[in-house]
């Protein structure tokens, strides 16, 4: 298997990987190409995922769920290997990578990092195996980029906590067994592991999306949801908790976006060579070559940045402003690559018969979640200038 698509790997990126990393990448690629790729365009078209729990279980068997965590049935692999996994999953569809990001880097990571021992042993092994699904509820209808003003509240009642409020745009929400919920308390923002079977908890799937259609997105409502003390994350207070989780997931997005870009770039390249107009392949026109060369350049740069960030993460030196550099650049450039690919495919570019417009539309969500372009621009601006321009 030609792991990094020799046709688009002009720079020889494949050389940057060791054998273990290649094995992991190959395993994910094999699974994703054989078990997901043949069906995903149809799921996208119908705005659903057939048997999402079966899919989660297969991903669990492969080992991707919480793969970069240790203990509790998690694989304990490196950040680079996790990145390559996101790359291969998102090369198939951003919705599948989203499912895995939310399960592993948001829900599992939050429980693993902040949860009580009871919560960890109750959920993590089942989530790693794919027998349980998690979601992560931070965003609210009126609080997105600035979650500090969230209105979901949790109050103590004896040894229990009682939660009221609503969360919006929650990936995996309707299929989740456990929801990580962030809520205001008298002690500041705290996190809770809420079993979705708790009375008063409900999830409704959000319809009418034209992006990430092969991913389940839901609105959560909590009406006097009562959970015992062990469900609250004992140590963490304030927004630092959820933001740490987001930085984890964002790292996967840095890689994943390049997967979508790779698929669109190689699709456009093949198409341009095969499609003839005016008596020659459209790849033979300088205007097309300019597009392909620019796409290739941004793909290679994005991959190098992703690789660099992964090596830093493995070394324990990765800072969150650095992840912002990756998220901002790679999603923005991946989207541009997909849009350009779309033009190269002409009318076929708008058809679901080809993966291009699906990836392009998906990336519109990826551009917004995990911190919008504007937010990461301000993070980078602040890191450079020391001046906070958020408010």
């Amino acid at each position, binding site marked *: *298997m*030609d792991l990094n698509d020799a046709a688009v790997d002009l720079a020889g990126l494949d050389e940057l990987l060791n054998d273990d990393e290649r094995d992991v990448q190959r*395993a994910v690629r*094999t*699974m994703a190409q054989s078990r997901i790729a043949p069906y995903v365009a149809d799921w996208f078209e119908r705005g659903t995922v057939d048997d999402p729990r079966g899919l989660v279980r297969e991903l669990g068997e492969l*080992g991707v769920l919480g793969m970069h965590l240790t203990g509790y049935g998690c694989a304990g692999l490196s950040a680079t290997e996790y990145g390559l996994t996101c790359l291969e999953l998102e090369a198939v569809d951003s919705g599948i990578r989203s499912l895995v990001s939310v399960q592993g880097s948001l829900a599992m990571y939050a429980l693993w990092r902040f949860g009580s021992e009871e919560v960890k042993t109750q959920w993590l092994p089942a989530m790693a195996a794919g027998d349980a699904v998690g979601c992560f509820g931070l965003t609210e209808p009126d609080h997105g980029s600035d979650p500090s003003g969230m209105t979901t509240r949790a109050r103590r009642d004896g040894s229990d906590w009682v939660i009221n409020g609503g969360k919006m745009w929650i990936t995996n929400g309707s299929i989740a067994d456990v929801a990580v919920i962030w809520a205001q308390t008298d002690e500041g923002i705290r996190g809770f592991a809420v079993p979705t079977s708790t009375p008063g908890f409900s999830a409704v799937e959000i319809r009418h999306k034209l992006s990430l259609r092969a991913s389940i997105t839901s609105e959560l409502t909590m009406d006097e949801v009562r959970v015992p003390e062990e469900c609250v994350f004992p140590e963490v207070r304030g927004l630092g908790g959820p933001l740490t989780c987001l930085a984890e997931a964002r790292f996967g997005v840095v890689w994943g976006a390049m997967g979508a870009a790779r698929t669109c770039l190689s699709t456009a390249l093949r198409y341009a060579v095969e499609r003839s107009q005016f008596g020659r392949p459209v790849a033979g026109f300088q205007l097309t070559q300019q597009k392909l060369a620019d796409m290739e350049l941004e793909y290679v740069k994005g991959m190098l940045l992703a690789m660099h960030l992964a090596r830093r993460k493995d070394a324990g030196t990765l800072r969150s402003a650095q992840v912002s550099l990756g998220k901002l650049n790679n999603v923005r450039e991946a989207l541009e690559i997909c849009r350009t690919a779309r033009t190269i495919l002409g009318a076929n570019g708008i058809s679901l018969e080809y993966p291009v417009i699906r990836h392009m539309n998906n990336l519109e969500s990826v551009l917004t979640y995990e911190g919008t372009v504007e937010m990461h621009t301000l993070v980078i601006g602040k890191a450079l200038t020391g001046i906070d321009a958020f408010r």
Partner: protein
Amino acid sequence: MNIVVCVKYVPDAQADRTFSPDDNTTDRENVDGLLSELDEYPVEEALKLADATDGKVIVLTVGPEDATDAARKALQMGAHEAVHVQDDAIHGSDALATSKVLAAAIAKLEYDLILTGMASTDGSMGVVPAMLAERLGLPQITLASELTIEGGKAVIRRDNDASTEIIEASLPAVVSVTDQINEPRYPSFKGIMAAKKKPLQTWSLEDLGLTADEVGSAAAWTTVTSVAERPARTAGQVVTDEGDGGAKLVEFLAGAKLV
């Protein structure tokens, strides 16, 4: 039950196939290679049998240095041990010599059953299993689309165009399996990590008691004298039906000696 599975390392079929200009052998050095896809089926079948009988699966590959990749893939799928026979002298071996090396290696192993694929995806002669059985003096049953082990016997089903045959042989036996027999698993991360700790031995010809002059191109009974790329496909011929379309089609087919 100990099962030996013969697996071949072949050039990736997705990449362009090239031949070395010196001796017309497949270029295995400059192309990415992998475990022959058709050999994933005997590996899967062996793993299922071993699971059911608490047995052991040993994979055996004969090939260049990189052929370790094929062995490693089988270990990642779940095989317990691997043997890689590697010796520069083996380069250029024909099917006869390959089967000789495989037989010599198998003779050093403990086994109850030997599984192979139905054909490799590069040479694709499909003769190695038969040659191997002959050399080992074992019964061979080929092209199994179902395999069960019952009371010291291997029982297979072979599907032909017109009939289905049930065939049995006493163990040990050589059984080749088709791509209809199962759905091979893909390695999981657990499998990948476990494989790193599994024994993978490399044997030379000397280890097998063979000498260089028994194998390789010099000892080959057959030689590939030339290879040429298939010419690029030319544009088709469009037949416009002006009432005589049928006749024109027949004319074309007859011209190409197809009817």
